């Protein structure tokens, strides 16, 4: 039906999906376990490593003292590698979580034959976008709560025992606010980039999920998005040893930039201008993929047959609608 608007109903889908995610027992148990791990990580580490900052340092790196580390002229391989590795693995985890939830959610609706009932009231694009936003909110809440729990645990543990080994260990890895762009600004930048990566990859996961008809296809539906996530992650990790030279290219490359740019910003390889350009490119990519996928969601969401290959879906997006 010619619905009231392309985005009418997104809010309702968002609210419903999010509430159901938080009501789901297994989700809550996972949530609880992750937070518990984050809360216990510092106290447990302090039992084994606390009280001796040097031991923490030695555990991670060959740099023996903070003085040596701070006296270095430029951002070294360690700093660049660990920052890039740490950030991209976090984005990868967030994206994999989001994509898996999205594929499952779409397949659940398709396999339980709810789609037709839903499509009387809402456009398929709005339905999928509402879902994506709800799932990203859920996954980000989970990650944020974990980080907050970890920070809280760090400060609370610090009141009772020596937690300086963590700072020392990070400094040993070349991660220090003293000469890297680390601060609240970087956290905001990292969150924005991770969000954009999540939305972009979730759109691909949604397309892949919509091209399947039953829950048995879930694993293969996840594959397309997972492969892209892995490719982005590996590209970033493999390029890092080449120093700051490819930083601008990596930061402006669609898909990869969300995995790379914030880390390059932290190491000072790119400035705020390139960072903003990277976001603009990500947003354009999101809009383009959303537009392309909008052409096929209607057909795919009604599709009932064997799993469609990505190539077929793309040809549908570029050409005319099909269905079965």
């Amino acid at each position: 039906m010619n619905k009231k608007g392309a985005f009418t109903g997104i809010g309702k889908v968002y609210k419903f999906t999010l509430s159901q995610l938080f009501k789901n027992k297994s989700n809550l148990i996972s949530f609880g376990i992750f937070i518990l791990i984050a809360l216990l990580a510092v106290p447990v580490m302090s039992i084994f490593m606390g009280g001796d900052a040097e031991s923490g340092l030695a555990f991670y790196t060959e740099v023996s003292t903070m003085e040596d580390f701070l006296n270095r002229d430029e951002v070294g391989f360690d700093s660049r590698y660990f920052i890039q590795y740490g950030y991209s693995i976090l984005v990868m985890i967030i994206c994999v979580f989001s994509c898996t939830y999205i594929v499952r959610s779409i397949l659940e609706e398709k396999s339980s034959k709810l789609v037709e009932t839903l499509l009387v009231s809402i456009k398929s694009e709005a339905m999928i976008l509402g879902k994506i936003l709800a799932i990203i909110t859920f996954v980000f809440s989970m990650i944020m709560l974990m980080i907050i729990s970890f920070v809280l645990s760090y400060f609370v543990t610090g009141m009772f025992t020596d937690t300086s080994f963590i700072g020392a260990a990070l400094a040993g890895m070349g991660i220090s606010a003293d000469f890297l762009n680390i601060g609240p600004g970087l956290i905001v930048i990292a969150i924005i980039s991770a969000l954009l990566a999540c939305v972009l990859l979730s759109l691909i996961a949604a397309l892949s999920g919509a091209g399947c008809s039953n829950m048995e296809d879930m694993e293969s539906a996840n594959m397309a998005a997972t492969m892209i996530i892995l490719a982005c992650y590996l590209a970033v990790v493999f390029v890092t040893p080449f120093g700051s030279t490819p930083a601008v290219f990596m930061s402006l490359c669609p898909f990869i930039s969300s995995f790379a740019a914030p880390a390059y910003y932290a190491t000072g390889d790119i400035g705020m201008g390139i960072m903003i350009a990277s976001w603009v490119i990500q947003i354009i990519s999101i809009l383009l993929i959303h537009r392309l996928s909008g052409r096929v969601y209607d057909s795919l969401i009604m599709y009932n047959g064997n799993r469609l290959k990505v190539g077929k879906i793309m040809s549908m997006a570029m050409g005319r609608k099909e269905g079965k």
Partner: protein
Amino acid sequence: MSLVVKNLKKTYGEKVVVDNLSFEMPGPGVYALLGTNGAGKTTTIRMILNMLARDGGEVLWNGRPLTTDNCNVGYLAEERGLYPKYNLMDQLIYFAGLRGVPKAEAKERIKYWAKRLEAEEYLYPSASPAPALEEKKKYKSARKKAFKPKLADQLSKGNQQKIQFMIALISDPELIILDEPLSGLDPVNTDLFKGIIREQIAAGKYLIMSSHQMATVEEFCTDITILDRSKPVLQGNLNEIKKSYGRVNLHLKTEQDATHIIEAQGAKILTEKECEYQLKVTGEEQANKLLAELIAAGIMVITFDLREPSLHEIFVEKVGEVHE
């Protein structure tokens, strides 16, 4: 108000699935879409609701293209489904919200329909009586279970269908599309659904019904289209169609054997069982002549019922004609 479906066409590659289908509902009532399996009924409905892209034609409501802006639509899909693991009440409120019904109003309507469809115990579990158990512990645990909101997969197929019917009617739609509404229901629930359909007709609603149960369609519909292999093979007012066939079906029951008289009069015996005959006559004249002969021969006539062909017979004849 009026609904006009004009020259609807749908093709998948070379295959024509719906070929130039047109019909009109100038006023409230029930329009039946009938046809063999794969004739194009569900595709037609999906095109009316704009879930599937049309390759031609248009659907007008009051002279304007049908949209949810200008027409409140309720739809019971053939492929029915509910979220299997979500609370039923949450689902109903969600679907009502998508159809623009505010939460408070939705709750009132759910209450009404739950009572009307005898589904209160699934939506308001506290209303169901707790089993009488002597032991306090057992009683407590039983009460706890009884108060737990029901999930869709805890309901039988028929009861799930009640919930889906509620979803279709929750927005108090002016156009109601029911795809095989009574399939899979037991006789008690069939009567319950029929009663509600009758109420909707009396309330001046527009209904489009697709069904294989000819007797049911005959009970409600005023106009029909019979589709066969994507093409309409018979269309029009059901009474007019029946009249055009004439009164050619004769149900005859006698005390004595009347076979020789029936044969002498040239009537065709379709079935015969213990002096009860289903006959095909050429018209009223032949039937009257037969009755006169029976009386003249001193044969006691218990039943003499001359009637138009049933929709089932018309359907079989029409579709059979095309296949020959």
